[in-house]
């Protein structure tokens, strides 16, 4: 038992965090809002050069062959700077889904391997139009889309679909509805295999959102502390008042207790698939509560300033509000936990917090919650 990240994981996080904090500022995010595509092409290439798009891609396809546990700290950093580029969503859901097909015995494995090699070099990108989400973010900047038709998985060229742009309350998000026609040529998986692909993509997508929410919320909390330390009323910083301190302390508590839940979920997705549904849903719910509380209190302590367009806080707040509802909202995930808890075979109690061994075969699927 060792519940700590490795030195390598922490060092890699620090490297990525340093790049992001230099390259992604509130001003540069606002500049994206008025640009045609809404992304920074140079930064996108830099991130690709670091291997981030293909972090979860097997080394045989040119990726880094790392796991969700390695990615989760990076996803938090992407949230911290409110990165508009869809790195986390694409890498965690779409690209990882292609990797699963590439490593399978499906006929489309070769095609997916080729596509992954393109992604690893930064020459292609893929987004995921999961059935749980009504819209795809940044679909127009992706070369490929993974789209559902029942349980089937289709890999579709973006040029062959109609993207109907919608306007998000978060100006950093470029969401669209996708109108398309499935064909035999675009199908890469179906039946039980297709359903499993969608299910694991949902878990990874939700995990990515949970991690970003933590980063976004920690950034809001930091801004709130700085603001309430600088801003003076009644001759002293407003942050010296207990009423203000306690609002922000509550945010810190809820964030502190969400982070280990997210680490456990990433570990489960990477190492212990029979526990992934439960662990991811817990992570998504915990991150959601912590983030939305921090948005509310963080805005409150900014006073009227927090309610303005000018105040950069909106970049982080609106991202939280928007992505919180994607990849399954709190109701969806809480319901998965509820069903699991009502399962007569549910492994409840402290001795079941963790697996007995690293092998998922130790626990039968009958002990898994409903999907």
């Amino acid at each position: 038992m060792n519940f700590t990240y490795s030195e390598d994981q922490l060092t890699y996080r620090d490297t990525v965090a340093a790049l992001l904090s230099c390259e992604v500022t509130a001003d540069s995010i606002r500049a994206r809002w008025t640009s045609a595509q809404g992304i920074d092409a140079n930064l996108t290439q830099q991130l690709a050069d670091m291997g981030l798009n293909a972090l979860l891609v097997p080394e045989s396809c040119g990726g880094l062959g790392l796991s969700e546990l390695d990615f989760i700290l990076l996803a938090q950093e992407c949230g911290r700077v409110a990165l508009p580029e869809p790195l986390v969503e694409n890498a965690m859901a779409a690209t990882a889904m292609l990797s699963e097909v590439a490593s399978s015995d499906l006929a489309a494995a070769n095609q997916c391997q080729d596509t992954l090699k393109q992604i690893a070099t930064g020459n292609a990108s893929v987004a995921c139009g999961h059935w749980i989400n009504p819209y795809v973010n940044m679909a127009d900047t992706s070369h490929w889309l993974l789209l559902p038709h029942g349980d089937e998985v289709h890999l579709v060229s973006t040029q062959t679909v109609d993207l109907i742009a919608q306007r998000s309350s978060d100006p950093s998000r470029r969401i669209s509805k996708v109108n398309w026609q499935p064909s035999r040529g675009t199908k890469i998986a179906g039946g039980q295999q297709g359903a499993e692909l969608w299910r694991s993509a949902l878990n990874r997508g939700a995990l990515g959102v949970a991690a970003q929410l933590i980063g976004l919320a920690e950034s809001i909390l930091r801004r709130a502390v700085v603001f309430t330390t600088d801003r003076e009323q009644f001759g002293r910083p407003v942050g010296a008042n207990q009423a203000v301190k306690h609002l922000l302390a509550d945010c810190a508590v809820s964030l502190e207790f969400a982070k280990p839940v997210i680490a456990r979920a990433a570990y489960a997705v990477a190492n212990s698939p029979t526990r992934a549904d439960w662990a991811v849903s817990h992570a998504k719910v915990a991150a959601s509560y912590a983030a939305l509380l921090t948005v509310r209190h963080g805005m409150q302590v900014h006073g009227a300033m927090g309610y303005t367009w000018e105040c950069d806080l909106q970049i982080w707040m609106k991202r939280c509000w928007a992505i919180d509802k994607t990849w399954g909202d709190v109701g969806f995930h809480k319901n998965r936990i509820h069903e699991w808890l009502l399962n007569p075979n549910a492994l409840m109690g402290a001795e079941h917090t963790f697996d007995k061994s690293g092998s998922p075969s130790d626990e039968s699927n009958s002990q898994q919650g409903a999907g």
Partner: protein
Amino acid sequence: MKLTYTVEEQGFRLQVRQWLVDNPPKQPLNSFDTQKGFEQHRQWEKTLASGNWGMVTWPKEYGGRGCNLIEWLIFEEEYYRAGAPLRVNQNGIFLLGPTLMEYGTDEQKERFISAMASGDEIWAQGWSEPGAGSDMAAIRSKATRDGDEYVINGQKIWSSRAVFADWVFCIFRTDPDSSRHHGLSFMLVPLDAEGVTVRPIEQLNGLPGFAEIFFDNVRIPVFNRLGEEGEGWSIAMSTAGFERGLMLRSPARFQQAAKNLMELYRAKRNDILDLSIEDAVVRCYMDAEAYALSTYQTASRLMNGGQIGAESSCNKIFWSELDLKIHDAAMRLLGARGELEADSEDASAELGGWLDGFLFAQSGPIYAGTNEVQRNIIAERMLGMPRK
């Protein structure tokens, strides 16, 4: 990161489990806040000590097993799973014991630790005074040096277990010209010493779970001072750190309560019209699990050389509010029968100990530093907000 138990850890769990099948009392004990129950619980401490299970993290020379923190968590999980009795000597073993090991002289360790581990000496805690509650640095009770002795005068209050305990650990003002956290010293006082008067205070459940202690020219040897004169505050803070940090409320207690709550919910959910009860029980289960995950993470960090800091204040807030939520949900599920005391004519097993737990849970956000004080600590020390 490796979130699975090693073969050794699994073996340890089975060893604990077996011992807890064979040894705990078959009938529930009386409350340790009664004379009879106190002695029953003392006897259980002796049984634990006889198997070297009293405090598994302690070194073998003090009756422990030299376990690491992960093994301690496993022990606690099995302990609550078995429904073994509450620990009457928790002030001693969880708080004073580690402090003695850190600050005590060899002679002091020799004198106090074994007797504590064996249950021969049960400890009460004496920090608060009538004028020094949340503001502990305002204490006024004095210990005045007189040759090889200190002469103690003053008053402590809210001392848990003091009514039946044998000893109390306190901080007193040894420098009469000092103020606040300066000039304080940490003392160990036998409660049967001449000049000590213990006045029981009944808690919300009507039992004398804590007491006022009056000191009237009480003489103790200088030997009973832990650390140097004037170091009392920092030693007490390290004890408070243990208390809020890891040891006082291990997650297994709440995971077991959350599991019991789920069982109650499964039995009663179709009788309950309150739509929000589903949300409440799911959140309780999740939060109990989150507390466990967080504790494992902290334990791993400490084992890798890390330190526990202001996050112990986060812990204190989280478990005390979780305990309230769990018992609130249980009382909602029990409905109008929830008010029944266990000896009522119509009481039944279904009521479990929920009412007792519900009343006790009300004290969680108050003792060991109120949650408001903890929020101040988090804001100032963890977040860096201005003190003034």
